[in-house]
C-alpha cells in the first residue's frame, strides 16, 4: 500500500482544515476597517464618525435567488446614494455586509448570527417568509432591527397569540391584502362570477393569499368553484388544469412564485384555458415570461407593490439602469424602500448607539415617502398601509393596469 503518498495527502487535508478553522477565527476579529463592500464616497475619507454597519440577509442563491439579488441591488443603490451625498448624522457613512441564506430557514439563522457578530445595527431582508421566521428570535435577543422588504406573511410581525414582534418591520403590505386586491379586481374590473384557485400547499405565502382571495370573493356573493393544490417545484400541472377546466371558471387565481406559475400558465394555455389568470407579487420577476412564453402570458394579471412604468418612478428606474444595466422589478423597489426606511429612522433617532431608540424611531416613522409610494407604519402591527397596483402582461411586457388603495 502506498502509505507515504496517502499520508502526505491526509496531512495536506488536515492542514487545509486547520487553515479553514483559523480563517474562520480571522473573520471574527473586530473589524477595525469596514470589511469589504465599502462603497467609494468620492474618494475622500469619511468626514466624521465610524461607519454604520448594516447587514443584508438575502436569498442570493437557491430557489428564490431572483428576489434576493433584485432586493440587494435596490438596497445598495439607496446606501450608495446617501453615502455619495455625505452620509447621515454629520458624515457617518453606511457600510453594508451581505450574507447569503440560500433561500432556506436554517441558513438564514446562520446568516443572521454572522451579521449580529459583525455588530450590525440593522438587518435588511430576508425577502421570503420562512427565512425571516428563522431570524426573529435571534434579532430580538440581540436588539437588532430587522426590516424585510417583501416578507408578506402576517405572522412575521404579529405572533399567533396576538403579541407584537417589536424588532421586525416590513416595507410591504401583508398577504391577506394581496388576496383581497386580486379578488376585488376579479369582481370589479373583470366582472367574474366564478373563480378557481390553484395554490402551492408547501408555501405559507401561497396558502395565505388563496385564503384571503376566497374570503373576499365569497363575501361578495360569488362562488369559488374549484380549489386545487400543488407543491412548489411540480412540473406537471395538467391533472389539476383538467379539473379546473371541467368547472369552467371565469377567472383563475394562482398565487405562488414565478417558476411554478410560469409552468402553470403555459400548460393551462396549452390545455385551451383562455380565461384571465391572476397572481400575487411572486410573479414580479423577469423570468415569468421566459418560462411561460409571451403569447401565453396574455390576459394574465398580478398584484404588485409597484409598477415600473409608473411616471413617479422614472428617476429611480433611470438610476437603477445606470447602475446595473437592467430594469428594476418590484423587489428592487422594495429593497430600496426598506433601506430608505432605515436611513430615515437613523436620522430620526439621531444616532445608532441605542438600539431601542432606533427601533422606536422606525416604529413611529409616521407618514413616509418611498419609491413605491407614500406609506405609514402602524405602530401596533408594524405593517405599512400603502397602495397596491395591478399589472397586466401584454405580449410579454408588464403594463400598469390600475392602482388599488387599502380599504
Amino acid at each position, binding site marked *: 500500500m502506498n*502509505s507515504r503518498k496517502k499520508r502526505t495527502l*491526509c496531512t495536506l487535508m488536515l492542514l487545509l482544515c486547520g487553515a479553514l478553522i483559523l480563517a474562520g477565527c480571522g473573520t*471574527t476579529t473586530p473589524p477595525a476597517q469596514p470589511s469589504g463592500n465599502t462603497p467609494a464616497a468620492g474618494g475622500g475619507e469619511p468626514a466624521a464618525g465610524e461607519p454604520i454597519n448594516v447587514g443584508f440577509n438575502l436569498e442570493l442563491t437557491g430557489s428564490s435567488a431572483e428576489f434576493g439579488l433584485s432586493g440587494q441591488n435596490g438596497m445598495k443603490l439607496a446606501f450608495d446614494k446617501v453615502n455619495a451625498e455625505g452620509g447621515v448624522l454629520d458624515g457617518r457613512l453606511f457600510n453594508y455586509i451581505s450574507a*447569503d441564506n440560500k433561500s432556506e*430557514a436554517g441558513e438564514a*439563522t446562520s446568516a443572521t448570527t*454572522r451579521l449580529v457578530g459583525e455588530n450590525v445595527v440593522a438587518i435588511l431582508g430576508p425577502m421570503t417568509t420562512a427565512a425571516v*421566521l428563522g431570524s426573529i428570535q435571534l434579532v430580538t435577543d440581540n436588539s437588532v432591527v430587522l426590516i424585510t422588504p417583501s416578507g408578506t406573511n402576517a*405572522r412575521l410581525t404579529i405572533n399567533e397569540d396576538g403579541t407584537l414582534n417589536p424588532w421586525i418591520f416590513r416595507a410591504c403590505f401583508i398577504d391577506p391584502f394581496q388576496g383581497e386586491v386580486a379578488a376585488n379586481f376579479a369582481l370589479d374590473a373583470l366582472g367574474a362570477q366564478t373563480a378557481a384557485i390553484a395554490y402551492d400547499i408547501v*408555501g405559507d405565502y401561497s396558502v395565505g393569499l388563496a385564503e384571503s382571495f376566497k374570503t373576499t370573493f365569497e363575501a361578495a356573493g360569488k362562488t369559488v368553484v374549484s380549489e386545487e393544490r400543488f407543491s412548489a417545484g411540480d412540473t406537471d400541472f395538467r391533472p389539476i388544469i383538467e379539473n379546473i377546466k371541467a368547472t369552467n371558471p371565469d377567472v383563475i387565481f394562482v398565487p405562488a412564485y414565478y417558476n411554478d406559475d410560469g409552468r402553470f400558465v403555459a400548460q393551462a394555455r396549452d390545455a385551451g384555458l383562455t380565461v384571465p389568470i391572476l397572481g400575487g407579487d411572486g410573479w414580479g420577476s423577469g423570468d415569468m415570461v421566459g418560462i411561460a412564453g409571451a403569447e401565453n402570458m396574455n390576459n394574465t394579471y398580478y398584484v404588485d407593490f409597484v409598477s415600473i412604468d409608473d411616471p413617479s418612478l422614472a428617476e429611480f428606474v433611470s438610476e437603477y439602469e445606470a447602475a446595473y444595466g437592467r430594469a428594476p422589478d418590484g423587489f428592487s423597489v422594495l429593497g430600496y424602500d426598506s433601506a430608505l426606511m432605515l436611513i430615515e429612522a437613523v436620522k430620526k433617532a439621531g444616532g445608532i448607539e441605542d438600539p431601542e431608540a432606533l427601533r422606536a424611531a422606525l416604529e413611529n416613522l409616521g407618514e413616509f415617502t418611498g419609491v413605491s409610494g407614500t406609506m405609514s407604519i402602524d405602530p401596533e402591527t408594524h405593517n405599512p398601509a400603502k397602495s397596491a397596483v395591478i399589472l397586466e402582461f401584454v405580449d410579454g411586457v408588464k403594463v400598469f393596469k390600475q392602482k388599488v388603495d387599502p380599504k
Partner: protein
Amino acid sequence: MRWTKYLIWLTAAAAVYGIVYLLAHVGIVSRFFLLTMVQICIYIIMALGLNLITGFTGQLSIGHAGFMSIGAYATGIFVVTFGKPVSAALTELWGDRGVTDVAYYIFILTSLAVGALAAALFGLLLGLPTLRLRGDYLAIATIGFGEIVRIVLLNTKALGGASGLPVKQSVDWATAYWLMLLSVVLVYNFVNSSHGRACISIRENEIAAETMGINTTKYKVMAFALGACFAGLAGGIYANHMYLVHPNSFGFLKSFEILVMVVLGGLGSVTGCILGAAVMTIMNNVLAPFPELRMIIISVLLVVMMIFRPNGLMGATELRLPFRRASATGAEEGSGHDL
C-alpha cells in the same frame, strides 16, 4: 496500551472543549464561530448515522434528512408542549436555584432522547419492508420516504405547517459537542463489535454473508434503525439550537449533503466522516462572506476530490494514534503514522 489510547483521545477531546470554552468565555470567538461548532457537531452525528447505513452496511440511503426532521419535530414538539409546564413546576419546587436549571437541562436531554427514539422507530418501520430491496431500489425508496416526511410535515397545521415550528434555544455548543463525542464512541464500538462485523460482511458480499449464517435482514434493519436514531439526535440538537424547525430545511438536498460528507470523508471510516462533515460545514461557513462564489468553490473542490481521491479523504481506513503500530513493527518505516 488500550487504555492509554483512550486516555489520549479523551484528553484531546477535553482539550478542544477547554480551548473553545475559554475562547468563548473571554469573548474572542464570535457567536457565528460557536454556531459553526454546533453545526459541525450536528453534521458529524448525521454523517456517523449515514455511514453506519451506507458506509459500513453498504445500503444506499438518500433519505437521511427525513429522519433528521422526524427527530427535530419530535424534540421540538416535546419541548414546546412540556417546556413551560415543566419549567413552572420546577421553579415552584425549588425556586430560582441552580438545581432548577439542572433539572431543566435533564428535561432538554430527555427531549433529545425522544427525538432520537422517534427517528429510530421510523427507521425500524421503514427498514423492515424496504431493506428487502437492494441497491438502486432502496435508494429510491428512501428518497420517497424523505419526501413523504417533508410533505406530511408541511401539510400538518398542528405542527406549524409551512410556517415551521419555533423552538426556544436551549442547547449550547458544549452539549452538542459532548453528544457528538458520545455518538462517535458508540458508532466506533458498534462497528468494532460482532454486530458491526456482520454489517461489514453484508457490505462486502451479501450472499456470502447469508451463506455464513448471518441474518442479513436483521443486521440491515439494525444498522438502519441505529443510523436513523443518530439522525434523530442530530435533528433534536438542531431543533433546540436553531430557533425554527422548518420542513424545507430537511429536503432532498440536505440528504444529499450528508451523503456528500460521508463520501468525501470516506465510506466506512468513522474518522473519515467526522473529517468530511467538518470540512463541508467549515467550508460552507468560512466562504459565507463570498456568497456569489461559495457554491461554485465547494462544487469545484468536490469534483477535484473525486478525481484525486475517489475513495474520500480517509478511504475505508481510520485515523490512528502514531505510536500504536510504530511500536508493533518498525519494519515499514513511517507506516504507523496517520493511517
